């Protein structure tokens, strides 16, 4: 076993044998978890310093999926940049599109038609459901339960069918775009979508029976990886990971864009139902409850869509000129606060594009939480934080 020496942290290398007479209890070992590991959700590499099954320290190493997404943004027009945003959080492409579009619209003062706003809400929330489904399924997989994963994908499949009918793509949509959406929803969309929601809503109870309240699952996740509210705020967590710690903070309520203030929904927060507040189970369960709330929002939005005829897109969205100004705009994505900082220089092409990915910020707390827990808890904690490496590395 070759010793692993971290150039940045030479003090971490305790793999060498301490031969002097001393109080050596057991030996510490450095283990590479990833970048190719079944439960690091992509190409995340975590260097674990372990003592037997105990994890003493975990240092995430990122950058295996870096694609210069921000630099590209400084070379193309905003409208051309939309497809690149899809590839950041590839499980919630609609939300990424929405964040970038809203940022550009806020910078240029573009007015979005009413109908487009409703469509945006529908698709953002449907994508939130799809993203949380993957998160839930993969979390079950991390815990060794394979079956919920396939159930989750079965449900997600039909959401993707709806998306495909609307924009022709199943993963990289580029549907929500600057000034509105690329196309109107297809015929019978409202009926099919309602049908789907009627099908989907009872399934949530089934997931709860199968996974959420499963005794073994609760034993594995409750009281594990506790993040207190204070710590969560200090480390800049957002999204379900923050709300799992009991902080009632949701940008859809705090500064409602797209007309979120017109919808009636709750913000589920962790309550410490099965263990201490802010444990993995709370974070997991917040996602389950958020799916329920998203269903509520989509129902209302579908009603509203039927009564909102008109344009789905602002005509000048394709050729906006960015003013000599800068803006930082963030929305509540599926994984947390997804923000874009854009600086214009008067031309069509931004001078600077910078994204704030929620996964990146949420991941930073890993070491803090993983410290002093068991090896088997590492997938539990990383899965509950729910990172997407495409967004971390950008």
């Amino acid at each position: 076993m070759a010793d692993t020496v971290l150039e940045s942290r030479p003090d971490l290398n305790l793999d060498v044998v301490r031969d002097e007479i001393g109080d050596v209890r057991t030996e510490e070992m450095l283990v590479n978890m990833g970048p190719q590991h079944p439960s690091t959700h992509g190409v995340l590499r975590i260097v674990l310093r372990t003592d037997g099954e105990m994890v003493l320290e975990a240092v995430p190493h990122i950058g295996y999926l870096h694609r210069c997404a921000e630099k590209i943004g400084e070379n193309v027009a905003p409208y051309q940049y939309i497809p690149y945003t899809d590839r950041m959080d590839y499980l919630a492409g609609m939300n990424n599109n929405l964040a970038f579009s809203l940022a550009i619209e806020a910078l240029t003062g573009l007015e979005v038609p009413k109908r487009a706003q409703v469509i945006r809400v529908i698709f953002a929330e449907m994508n939130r459901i799809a993203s949380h489904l993957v998160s839930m399924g993969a979390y079950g997989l991390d815990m060794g339960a394979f079956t919920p994963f396939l159930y989750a994908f079965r449900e997600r499949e039909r959401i993707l069918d709806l998306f495909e009918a609307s924009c022709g793509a199943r993963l990289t949509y580029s549907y929500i775009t600057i000034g509105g959406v690329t196309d109107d929803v297809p015929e019978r969309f409202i009926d099919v979508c309602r049908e789907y929601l009627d099908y989907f809503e009872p399934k949530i109870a089934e997931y709860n029976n199968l996974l959420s309240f499963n005794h073994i699952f609760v034993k594995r996740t409750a009281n594990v990886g506790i993040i207190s509210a204070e710590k969560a705020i200090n480390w800049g967590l957002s999204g379900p990971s923050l709300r799992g710690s009991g902080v009632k903070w949701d940008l859809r309520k705090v500064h409602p864009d797209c007309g979120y203030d017109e919808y009636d929904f709750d913000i589920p927060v962790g309550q410490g139902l099965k263990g201490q507040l802010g444990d993995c189970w709370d974070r997991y369960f917040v996602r389950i409850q958020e799916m329920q709330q998203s269903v509520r929002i989509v129902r209302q939005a579908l009603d509203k869509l039927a009564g909102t005829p008109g344009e789905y897109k602002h005509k000048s969205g394709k050729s906006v000129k960015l003013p000599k100004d800068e803006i930082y705009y963030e929305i509540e994505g599926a994984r947390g606060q997804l923000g874009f900082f854009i600086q214009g220089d008067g031309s069509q092409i931004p001078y600077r594009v910078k994204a704030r990915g929620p996964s990146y910020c949420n991941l930073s707390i890993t070491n803090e939480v993983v410290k002093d827990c068991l090896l088997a808890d590492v997938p539990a904690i990383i899965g509950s934080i729910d990172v997407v490496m495409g967004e971390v590395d950008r």
Partner: protein
Amino acid sequence: MSQATIPWIEPVPEKRVAMRRKALLVLFGGGLTALIVGCVMLGVFRALPDQVGTIVFILAGVLPILGGLGLIPLGLLNGSVVLTTLGFAQIGIGALVGGLLKATPIDPLVVGVLLLVIGPIAAGLAMLTAAGVIVAFKQVVQLLLMRWTALILFCGGIVSIILLVWAHAFVFRYVAQLANDTTLNTSATTTFGGDLTIAELSTRFSGNWRPVAFVLWPLQFGLIRDLIAMGGVIGFISIIPLYTIWWERKVAGRIQSRLGPMRVGGWHGWAQSFADGMKLICKEDFVPPEGDGTLFRLAPYLAFVPAICAFIALPFATTYVFRDLDVALLFILAMLGIEVLGVIIAGWASNNKWSVYGAMREACQMVSYEIPMGMALLVPVMTAGALRLTDIAKLQQDGFGSWLAWNNPFCLIAFFCYYTASLASCKRAPFDLPESESELVAGFHTEYSGFRWSLFFFAEYAAMFAVSGLAVILFLGAWYGPLPLSWAPAGNDIASAVVRGLLFDGPILFILKCGLLLYVQIWIRWTLPRIRIDQVLYACIQVLLPLTMLVVLGSTFWLLFDNSAHPAFESFAKVVRGLLSLVGVVISIAIAGFIIFGFVNRRRLVGTLAIEHFPGS
């Protein structure tokens, strides 16, 4: 399913046609030659019955030596290593066979007939059949692809295996009877036989049936009977994993609203496991360069061999047991315990940190589950008052109520304790920590590939069957049906034998019961998440161990009262047994009802097949 997607019946390339023709030629020619050789030798043996010993000695002993002596100088002259080695090998074989023929009591006549007549004829027939299959290849494939073919093949295979077992049991009994028949045997009788000659045997048969004596003669040796039985056991154990893996994939598919294997072989992908086996054999055989190569290569066998050895002592029915050891239970437990060592060594020799984790977890897990498992098994052993598995089984032949699980409340609890511990013993979910793929990549078999990897799975599924078999024998009425054996038709005719074999007594019932327990194992695996190592230790040592201790204690007191034969306790025990049997009936009906309900409503339940959501379905 469209047949065009099956690669077997797509147009065959020219090269393969040529190969097929060549194979056909070789098989057909070889078969015919072998047949002719066999017939000629038969004639020779018939003509020269007295000199047979000499002929065999010359053919099998002297000829190879002469050939070898000729080959060696030829090889040396030509500088050919192969020829020289072949020469030496021939001398060795000749000397060995010749020496054996001279030194051992084996009748050269029988060896001669077996080697030179029956062997060639059988080989010739087999080769001709193979040639016929190749000629009729397309038709055979079509047959295999038919809807119910696989099921018929599978069931037919099972039936024919059982028939074979039946036949061999009959023949063995007959031979044993002959060996002990003093009218035949002029010398002293022994339990092991081995004293009958062909002449003595053939007096039993008339006319054209005389040659049967040649076939029966070797069977009088215990060793040869054992070898045949061992072949059967090994064959059966190889079939179990293949079909359990396929079954597990089908069940998993249904649970997960998929279809599971559908392609290979036609009906519901019944040949998937064979195809996987082919694939695994063709894979790269990787040995970690920094690991301990020898131990790495050895470890799969260390896991596989004990798992098979467990079947030496595992009875399938009263007479269907390879070795009816009086310590069978301990022996099987010991074999399951040694299997662990293979896993530990595998993890250790891989030189991979994840594998070492897997190995350590297995060691931890083993020391924690073995004790409650043994303690739980003590309860039926105490209740039965025997350690020999066939004796324990015999106590349960009076129908459902006499099964040991309902004998007293402690037995029922012990059954559940044992089943939990046996899940841990087979490394099945939720106790699959040594190979937990989400934490340890694949644990102890991370570095394994190909055939060695598949050996671990063979071992795992064989062990699954072994622990289920133990549970069935010790708790669930062994190979007896729910109806009392005394109700069974007693006649010796085939019809009553079949009824007895299917409903009252016999390996079919045993295999079915084991299959049910295997199904529950599969069911649990695809439903539950995995527990953590500290929780495994907690569950085994702090929950199961005290529980089984209490159960053993309680069972001791129960037996104490039971043996005292106090009338009040006897009636109390009767009531308790009745209630427990009722519980058993309810559980059985519930499981059966659950399965039937699931099957009938399979299109409406949670696991509705995803394929039906597809557009156009």
